[in-house]
C-alpha cells in the first residue's frame, strides 16, 4: 500500500472507534449498484526502482536534439540554484497561502515577484500569475471588456502577428461572452502591424487593441504609435510581451504617451524549462486604476498585531471563492511554483544578467541569419529588426526540410505553412544565448544539407 501508513492494528482500532466492521462499510451510502468492481485496465503498481527505470528509458528515448525552435517556448540557461530551491518541500508541497501567518515564505516571495514584474514591465501592479501566456491574453481581453466602461462593443483588435495559438486560445475562452476578436493583418514586407492598417477602425467603438512585442515573427513592433492609437480611440492597450526581451526593450508601461493598460505574456523565459510546453506561467500587470478588475491572486504587504510587516493575500473579493458568479475570473489554482522559480531566477540574473541573456540571444540569432545567408534560396522574410526570432523563406517544402534536419538531430525551426499558408514555405527560427558558434555553424551545415 504505497504511501499509506496504516498498520493492521491501526485499521482495527480505528474501525472500532468509528463503530464500523470494515472499511467497506464506510462506503455504505453509495448506492450498491454504482459501486465499481475493479479497474482491470490499470496495470499493477510498480516499485520506485521499476518506475525509475521506465522513466529513464522514456526520457532518453526522445534524444536531446539541438533545438532552434522558439515560437513561444525558449531554451535558456536556468541557474542550478533555481530549481534546487524551488523544489524544497516548503515551497513545493505547500498550497495557496490561505493561512498567511504560516505562509510568509510564499507570500513574501510573491510580493517580491510582483515588484520584479512591475520593474520589468514598467507597470504599477502585477498579479501572482495566470496559467500561461495564451490564457493570460484571454483574461486580459475579458478584463479589458470590464475595465473599459466607455466601450460597449466588446470588440477587440488582435494583430495576426500575435502567436496563432494565443489567438486561438483567447477566442476559445472569450467567445461564450459574445466578445469579438478581430484580426488585424500584418505588413508582408515589414512583418509588423502598421498603424495604417488600423485606420479603418477609427471612430468606431473599439474596446481594446492587443500589441505584441516582439511579435510572433520575432519582429519589433512600433509600440509607441500603436499604443497612442489605442488611447486616441478610447480603446485600452493590451501588451503581449516576452518578458526577457524587456531587459532590452522599452517596457509597456512607457509605450506611447500613457503606457499600456494591461500587460500579459508568458513567463517561461524566466526560469521555466521547456518541459514539453508546461507548466509555464502567465504574467499579468496593469495600471493601478484597473486593479479591481484584475483576475488572479494578489499579495499585499500589511502589519501584524505587533506592527511588524507581513504579507497576505488581498483584494480577495474579486475572486471566485468570494464573488462566485460575479468574480473577475474562475481561476483558483495558478502557477505558483513557476513564479517561485522565476523570482529566484530573476534575482540571480539581476538587471545586468537578464540584459546579457537577452543581448546574447539577439546576437546569436543575428549570427544565425549571417550563417545561413549564403545558402541558396534561403532568405530572411521580413525587414524589421527582430529580437531573437526570424522567419526564413526556404526554397523547398518547409516540412520536408525540417524533417531532414530532425533526422540529423537538429530541430530547425517552426513550420509556418500551416498557420500562415500565405507565406509559402517559411520557418520561424530562434537561437538563444544557449547556442555556441559551433551550434550555429552546425545549424547552417544541417540546413544546407537538407536543402541539397
Amino acid at each position: 500500500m504505497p504511501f499509506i501508513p496504516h498498520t493492521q492494528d491501526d485499521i482495527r482500532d480505528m474501525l472500532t472507534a468509528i463503530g464500523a466492521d470494515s472499511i467497506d462499510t464506510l462506503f455504505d451510502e453509495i448506492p450498491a449498484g454504482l459501486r465499481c468492481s475493479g479497474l482491470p485496465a490499470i496495470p499493477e503498481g510498480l516499485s520506485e526502482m521499476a518506475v525509475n527505470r521506465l522513466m529513464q528509458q522514456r526520457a532518453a528515448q526522445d534524444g536531446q536534439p539541438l533545438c532552434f525552435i522558439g515560437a513561444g517556448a525558449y531554451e535558456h540557461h536556468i541557474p542550478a540554484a533555481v530549481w534546487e530551491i524551488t523544489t524544497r518541500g516548503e515551497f513545493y508541497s505547500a498550497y495557496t497561502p490561505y493561512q498567511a501567518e504560516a505562509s510568509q515564505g510564499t507570500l513574501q516571495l510573491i510580493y517580491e515577484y510582483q515588484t520584479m514584474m512591475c520593474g520589468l514591465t514598467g507597470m504599477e501592479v502585477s498579479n501572482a500569475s495566470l496559467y500561461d501566456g495564451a490564457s493570460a491574453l484571454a483574461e486580459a481581453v475579458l478584463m479589458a471588456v470590464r475595465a473599459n466602461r466607455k466601450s460597449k462593443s466588446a470588440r477587440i483588435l488582435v494583430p495576426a502577428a500575435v502567436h496563432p495559438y494565443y489567438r486561438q486560445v483567447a477566442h476559445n475562452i472569450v467567445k461564450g461572452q459574445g466578445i469579438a476578436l478581430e484580426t488585424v493583418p500584418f505588413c508582408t514586407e515589414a512583418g509588423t502591424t502598421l498603424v495604417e492598417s488600423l485606420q479603418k477602425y477609427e471612430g468606431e467603438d473599439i474596446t481594446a487593441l492587443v500589441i505584441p512585442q516582439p511579435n510572433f515573427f520575432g519582429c519589433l513592433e512600433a509600440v509607441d504609435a500603436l499604443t497612442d492609437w489605442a488611447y486616441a480611440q478610447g480603446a485600452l492597450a493590451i501588451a503581449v510581451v516576452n518578458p526577457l526581451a524587456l531587459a532590452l526593450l522599452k517596457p509597456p508601461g512607457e509605450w506611447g504617451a500613457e503606457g499600456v493598460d494591461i500587460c500579459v505574456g508568458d513567463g517561461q523565459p524566466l526560469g521555466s524549462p521547456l518541459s514539453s510546453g508546461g507548466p509555464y506561467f502567465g504574467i499579468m500587470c496593469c495600471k493601478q486604476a484597473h486593479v479591481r478588475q484584475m483576475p488572479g491572486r494578489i499579495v499585499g504587504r500589511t502589519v501584524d498585531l505587533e506592527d511588524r510587516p507581513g504579507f497576505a493575500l488581498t483584494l480577495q473579493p474579486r475572486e471566485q471563492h468570494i464573488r462566485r458568479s460575479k468574480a473577475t475570473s474562475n481561476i483558483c489554482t495558478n502557477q505558483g511554483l513557476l513564479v517561485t522559480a522565476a523570482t529566484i531566477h530573476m534575482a540571480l540574473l539581476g538587471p545586468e544578467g537578464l540584459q546579457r541573456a537577452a543581448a546574447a540571444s539577439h546576437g546569436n540569432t543575428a549570427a544565425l541569419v549571417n550563417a545561413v545567408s549564403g545558402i541558396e534560396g534561403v532568405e530572411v522574410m521580413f525587414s524589421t529588426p527582430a529580437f531573437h526570432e526570424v522567419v526564413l523563406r526556404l526554397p523547398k517544402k518547409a516540412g520536408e526540410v525540417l524533417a531532414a534536419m530532425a533526422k540529423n538531430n537538429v530541430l530547425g525551426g517552426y513550420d509556418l505553412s500551416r498557420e500562415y499558408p500565405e507565406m509559402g514555405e517559411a520557418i520561424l527560427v530562434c537561437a538563444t544565448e544557449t547556442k555556441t558558434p559551433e551550434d550555429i555553424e552546425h545549424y547552417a551545415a544541417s540546413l544546407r544539407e537538407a536543402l541539397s
Partner: protein
Amino acid sequence: MNLKPEKPNQLIFEHSRAGRRAYAQAPLQAPEASGIPAELRRSSPVGLPEASEMDVVRHYTRLSQKNFSIDTHFYPLGSCTMKYNPRACNTLAMLPGFLGRHPLAPETHSQGFMACMFELQEILKEVTGMAGVSLTPMAGAQGEFAGVAMIQAYHAARGDTQRTEILVPDAAHGTNPATATQCGCKTVEIPTNDQGDVDVEALRQAVGPQTAGIMLTNPSTLGVFERQIGEIQKIVHEAGGLSYYDGANLNAILGKVRPGDMGFDVIHMNLHKTFSTPHGGGGPGSGAVGVSKRLLPFMPIPVVGLTDDRGGAEATSHISHLTSHGIYRWLDEQDLPQTIGRLSAFAGNAGVLLRAYIYARLLGREGMHRVAEFATLNANYLMVELQKRGFDVAYKGRRASHEFIITLKRQKQALELTATDVAKRLLDYGFHAPTIYFPLLVPECLLIEPTETESRETLDAFVDAMVTIWDEAKADIEQVKAAPYTMPVRRLDDVRAARELDLRWQGNE
C-alpha cells in the same frame, strides 16, 4: 537585555547593491544589441535586485523555512487533498530528457513523452469510467471551463440554442458559478437540504428547456456522498441538460465508484489533488477532462492518439496499449473538427502530467482502490473522535467521505470563538488549519480533509490540539483571539492590506 533578538527580515531588494551580481549566471560577454532601434530600447532601469548568488540562495532558503507544507506539517485543508507528494514523481519528471523537450518538437522526437501521456489518458479513462480524456486544462477551474464549453458545444451542434443556464448547488465551490459566467451562462443555485443532499424538489423546479446542465461534485463539498445521484441525473437528463462532475473530490471515491457509472457526461479531475502532484504554493495544477461518448468530438485539443504498427486505425481504449508498440501522434482540429479548441499555448501543464503519470504507475490498480479507502477511514475516524470530544459535526448521522465539516456555531455563541481563531491557534500547535468558511452555508465551519497518507498518531494529536484550544478559549478567549504566537509574524491585518494597498516595494520611504 532582549533575550530573543529579532533577526532582520529583508526583502531581496533590500539586499540589493548597485553593481553586485551573480557573475556565473549570465554569459560572460554579451554583444551590444545594436540591431535594436534606439526608439524601441529600454532606457529606464530594469528594476530587478542586484545580489550575489549566495545572497539569493540564502534569502530564498530562509524564506522557504517560513512556510508550512506537507513535507513539514499536517495540512488538512479540506477540498484540497494535501497528501504526500512522492519525491520520485518530481525527480523523474525533471530528468533532462523531459525538461529539455520543446513542445513543438516533431513526433519522431517525442515518442517517449507521448507514450506517458497516452497511457495517462488510458489510466484516467479507466479510473473515471469515461470514454475519452483530454489532458490539456491547466487546473481544475480550466477543466470546468472545458466541461461547460463542451456542454455548450454539444447543445449548439444539435441546434439547441436556448440552453444558457447552469445549475449549481449552493454548496458548490466558487469556481463552478464563476466558470458558468466565463462561458456566458447564467448560474442557478439549487439549495441543499438539512442532510447535506441536494434539494431534489427544488432541482425539479429549476430544470427546463433553458437548462444547459448541472455542475456537481460527489461526494459534495459538504463531505457527504450525494445519495440521490441517480435521481438527479434523471431529472437533468430528462430536461435535456447534461451533467458535469467536478472532480476535486475524486480522492474520496477512487476505485469505489466512477463518475462515468454515476451517469456524468463530462468531468474534470484535479490531478494536483487526487494524483498527488505538488501544490507548489498555489500551483501548477492540472484539470484533465473526461467525457462520455457523446461528448468525444468536442474534447479540447491536443490529445495523444495511437496509430498501431500496421498503420491507420486509431487505437481504442484498452490497457494492452500500455505495452503497445504503435506510433503516438497528436490529434488536433483536423482529427476533432468539433473540438472546443486549444485552451493553452501548447498541451497544458505537461510536467504536472508526467508527475501524475508516475504516481499512477507507482500506485497501480490496487493502490488506486486504497487511496479512497484510507482517505475515508482517516476522515471518519477523525470525525468520530472530534465528535466524542464534544465538537459538532455539520451533518450528523452521515458518513464522512474523505472530508467532513465541524461547525463552531455553538462555540461562537458561547465564547466568541471563531473558525479563524481556531485556525490561527492550530498553527501554534504545529498543524496547518483546515479550510475555513467554506462551504459558505455552514456557519463557522472547518472543512477537514486528513488524506490517506497521514498516520493515526497525527490524527490523534490533532484532536488533542483542538480540545486544548477549546479549553484555552474557555479559560481566556482573548489570548486565543490573539493567536498565533509562534509564527514568523503575529496575526496579520487583512483589512489594512486591502485598504492601504501595498502591492509592490517602492523603496524605503
